[in-house]
């Protein structure tokens, strides 16, 4: 037995020269990937780079067009998801696949429940075995808890336990941290480290470059469906990775341009909503980006919903352009020039099955119609105008938005509100799930908007984004505004202290 044999023995998975074509599109071209036992291998690339396609080939959801896959040195064809599972490959998708009315244990063993005679489920065994799996992960979850009573992070752990119940050798995690808080991310990383020690190989997909340095061992970069490079994490840095991903130097991740501050366009006075918001006071000026920082559940989204007229407020005043307004529906707010880019584009911001044009014109149909009859000609021109101005990548305005990338979808949402002549825009997590290149485009768009006199309220969980793009920053904590900083004063430490409530205002 020589050394190279031992080393080879360490390789769990080899994907060689993998290509995948869809009718008319080459999604993957000659991509290679090598995965070792106990390694966290990060797949990095912009949206549409081919990460998901590669992973779907591995999990049996897609069939490769050419290339070879070796699992522990043996050439293998993965024909369907079930076979992938049997080969020890498990995948945890961004959207969790759990039955919320069942317990953690029932979910972990769904489809392979231990049974007694006559097919009666052996619940004692079921709960005991799943508890053991959860304990091994080092998480404190009772296997009898119903999924609906667990937090997102805990549900994710149940998914991990489920994957382990298949004795998985390869675990694929697709953007596992996108819905987690800082604290939960730490716990997840602890669990990942435990899995590494057990020898599980992990393919980790994420947009958050900072994360990779904390958790990854190796990183493979894909761009436009092609293999670019594989690096040891210890030997690279974020500037290099970004350059590999986008093939251009991103000297400035936040291309902030300070615009001229104009008149006050929005003022909120003593706004309150029972159990959600307390005594909120602030104002917004033309040409300004007002960042709102805070932890999940600090009331940021509730504030946005109140200003947009979705939820009724219990007390306080909303003053728009000097006039007190009573907002009772989104329609009222839109008519007053407010636009909301929701936290969740797909479930709240867009009708995915409709075209670009239909989505852009949805809030503005009154503009394009007489007596309820829509003038399509005018709509088409408008849609084309925004596609051009915002450089939305699409073959045509008739394209369904479901087929666009995250960044382009966000541009469609922005177009909606530009079209409605909004001059107060609320961006709730504007770059969540958007790749680095498109992020910069969204920031540049914000610059253009503020230069044109629009006032922007930007809610974000990403501190660098808050610090990089805001002119002024409000920090929310437990439904209150707990601190205000100018761009110059703000530091990550100061904001975090206020967000956590360690330091109180005044």
């Amino acid at each position, binding site marked *: 037995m020589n050394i190279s044999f031992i080393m080879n023995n360490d390789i769990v998975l080899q994907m060689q020269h993998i290509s995948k074509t869809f009718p008319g599109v080459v999604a993957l071209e000659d991509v290679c990937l090598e995965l070792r036992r106990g390694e966290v291998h990060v797949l990095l690339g912009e949206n549409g780079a081919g990460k998901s396609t590669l992973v779907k080939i591995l999990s049996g959801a897609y069939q490769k067009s050419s290339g070879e896959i070796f699992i522990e040195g043996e050439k293998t064809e993965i024909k369907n998801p079930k076979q992938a599972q049997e080969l020890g490959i498990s995948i945890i998708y961004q959207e969790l696949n759990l039955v919320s009315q069942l317990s953690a244990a029932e979910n972990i063993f769904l489809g392979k429940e231990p049974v007694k005679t006559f097919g009666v489920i052996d619940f004692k065994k079921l709960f005991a075995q799943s508890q053991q799996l959860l304990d091994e992960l080092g998480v404190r979850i009772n296997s009898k808890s119903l999924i609906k009573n667990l937090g997102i992070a805990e549900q994710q752990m149940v998914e991990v336990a489920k994957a382990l119940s298949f004795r998985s050798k390869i675990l694929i995690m697709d953007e596992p941290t996108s819905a987690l808080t800082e604290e939960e991310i730490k716990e997840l990383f602890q669990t990942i480290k435990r899995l590494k020690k057990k020898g599980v190989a992990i393919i980790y997909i994420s947009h958050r470059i900072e994360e990779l340095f904390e958790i990854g061992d190796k990183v493979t970069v894909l761009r436009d469906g092609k293999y670019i490079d594989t690096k040891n994490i210890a030997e690279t840095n974020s500037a290099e990775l970004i350059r590999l991903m986008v093939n251009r130097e991103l000297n400035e991740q936040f291309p902030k341009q300070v615009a001229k501050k104009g008149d006050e366009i929005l003022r909120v006075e003593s706004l309150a909503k029972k159990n959600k918001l307390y005594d909120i006071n602030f104002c917004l000026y033309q040409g300004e980006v007002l960042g709102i920082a805070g932890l999940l559940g600090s009331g940021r989204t509730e504030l946005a919903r109140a200003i*947009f007229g*979705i939820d009724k407020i219990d007390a306080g005043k909303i003053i728009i352009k000097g006039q007190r307004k009573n907002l009772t*529906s*989104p*329609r009222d*707010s*839109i*008519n007053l020039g407010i636009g*909301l880019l*929701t936290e969740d584009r797909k*479930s*709240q*911001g*867009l*009708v*995915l*099955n*409709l075209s670009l044009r*239909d989505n852009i*014109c*949805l*809030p503005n*149909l*009154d503009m394009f*119609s007489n007596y*309820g*009859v*829509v003038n*399509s000609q005018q709509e088409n021109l408008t849609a084309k105008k925004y596609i051009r101005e915002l450089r939305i990548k699409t073959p045509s305005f008739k394209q369904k938005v479901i087929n666009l990338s995250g960044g382009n979808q966000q541009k469609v949402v922005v177009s*909606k509100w530009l079209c409605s002549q909004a001059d107060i825009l609320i961006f709730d997590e504007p770059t969540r799930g958007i790749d680095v290149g498109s992020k910069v485009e969204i920031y540049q768009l914000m610059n253009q908007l503020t230069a044109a006199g629009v006032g922007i309220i930007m809610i974000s969980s990403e501190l660098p984004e808050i610090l990089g793009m805001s002119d002024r920053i409000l920090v929310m904590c437990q439904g209150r505004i707990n601190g205000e900083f100018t761009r110059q004063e703000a530091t990550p430490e100061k904001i975090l202290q206020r967000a956590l409530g360690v330091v109180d205002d005044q």
Partner: protein
Amino acid sequence: MTSRDFILHHGRQLGTLFGLFVLGIVLWILSPFFLTVSNLLNIAQQTAINAIIAVGMTFVIITAGIDLSVGSILAFSGVVLASVLKADLPVPLAIIVGLMVGFACGLLNGILITIGRLPPFISTLGMMSVARGAALLYTQGRPISGFSDSFRFLASGEIGPIPAPVLIMIVVYIIAFFILNKTKLGRYAYAIGGNEEAALLSGVNVRFFKAAVYGLCGMLSGLAAVILTARLNSAQPIAGMMYELDAIAATVIGGTSLMGGEGTILGTLIGALIMGVLRNGLNLLGVSSFVQQIVIGSVIIIAVLADMALKKQKK
């Protein structure tokens, strides 16, 4: 648009049309009577009522709803219409009364669904029973028969070679096509069915437009009642039983998704015609009505299976 694009965009409708075409050829081979002008007009006439109800159903299903009460609303509108005709109300006014009764029932569905936040299935299931009961109560369970020739002209009349019901159907389809594709109501119907939350946050008055769609559906049931009453020269409180299923079937065969947000008027017309041609053909061939039910049920299932396979392939 190239021909390839055309096929990609309209594949579903072309598929249904192809199905109708194949069905026609098979029946043409099997029965010499099938492809005669009089038989084809006969099919169109028999299809008209279901096709008109299916238009309303299409709107409702596009908003991700369902209306189980169309058959009962038809019966109730029919008996009210008949009673005002008997009271010597002028025919045009009586027709308006019939349409308004249907509209009111539909609107009530809409209000229960929007303001009452009931699931459409429950609200219209309730209405199905209430409207049926109302029709029976109103007539004490007896049919109302015998109307003037001018009213009966709506079913028996012909304009050129085209029977009046067919003409009404064509007009309804043209208007519905226009509404669905060219008006706010149509666009909002797709948006509400596709993503109600996003529509609401885009400032769409979701409640108003949803209620309007159910009102429209009810009104079209009222129109179907006018034609049926004229054709039978009688309004029966038990008319329209199971019509909801025929209308849903025509809509679904026509490619409208029960998940909402998708569907076309033309597809529904083809769907209704497939149902009509199938019934007619099976009758011509002397197939028993028991077997007919099995065949029609199977066609619905096969149509949706084919639809799903097509969509999967597209992905």
